């Protein structure tokens, strides 16, 4: 992996170092100095994948914002939704830091109204509607992270995708519990 590093990029990275990374990004990159310094060559493909992931996280943050602001969520569900949103914000910050570290340009967030339209937020009429939307998005995100793992050039990033998928799966499980939904009857139901 390091053999593919472009010298000029290496110099850039060595001067920027890890200063300024968020706590989440530091955690994400912990013990992975190769990841922090990876750039150039095939890593552009990995940046593309991370940017798609960042788009997912932007959407998730806004989906929870729409839910929290809807007035439909009651405590303690509202607290859990806000907590899950904070996880997605940590994912977002870590992805942005990693993309920038690799020399990429992070995709930007759309407006809340754009997300509301794309997610048909106007159709949400109850707490169960909000939780159902959140569960659907979390399940999709979990599968999305698992489904891009084979495409990463850097196995360390593939592991990061697995960690992100685990968070989304945890969210989906809690939301499914709150909705009284059945668990999958068969093993290996994610990411086939």
């Amino acid at each position, binding site marked *: 992996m390091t053999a593919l590093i472009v010298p000029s990029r290496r110099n850039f990275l060595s001067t920027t170092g890890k200063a300024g990374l968020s706590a989440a990004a530091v955690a994400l990159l912990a013990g992975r100095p190769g990841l922090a310094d990876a750039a150039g060559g095939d890593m552009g493909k990995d940046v*593309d994948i991370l940017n798609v992931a960042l788009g997912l996280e932007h959407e998730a943050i806004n989906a929870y914002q729409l839910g929290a602001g809807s007035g439909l969520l009651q405590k303690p569900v509202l607290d859990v939704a806000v*907590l899950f949103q904070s996880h997605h914000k940590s994912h977002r910050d870590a992805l942005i830091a990693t993309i920038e570290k690799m020399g990429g340009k992070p995709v930007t967030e759309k407006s809340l109204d754009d997300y509301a339209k794309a997610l048909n937020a106007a159709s949400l009429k109850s707490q169960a509607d909000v939780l159902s939307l959140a569960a659907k998005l979390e399940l999709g995100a979990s599968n999305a992270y698992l489904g891009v793992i084979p495409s990463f050039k850097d196995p360390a990033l593939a592991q990061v995708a697995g960690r992100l998928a685990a968070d989304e799966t945890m969210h989906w499980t809690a939301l499914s519990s709150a909705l009284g939904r059945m668990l999958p009857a068969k093993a290996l139901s994610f990411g086939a």
Partner: protein
Amino acid sequence: MKPASLFALIGLAALAAPIRAGDAGDAAGRGLYEARCGGCHALDADRVGPRHAGVFGRKAGSVAGFAYSPALAQSRIVWGDDTLERWLRDPEALIPGQRMNFRVSDPAERRAIVDFLRTAR
């Protein structure tokens, strides 16, 4: 929020509506589409990925207003049984330079998703 608080909150929700074991896995059709593709796509709205309604017979990279990769926008592929199956198996092999990179490794799942997309209007 402390971890213990989260467990307490989730525990409350679980008590109100406990998880039940059962056959929740809809292995085909819409359920599978939503599980595998729903993270980024919807039928009737552009999200992280473009809308899928009417994808069969549509030229790749042709949904108006969606910001495709140059590779996809310039592709001459038309979506159908074969191209969608190959796309889901390994998008980079079909259109080098694309940005989806998501793979469905199970052939039966790919087939079921393509079958569903054929009906997505």
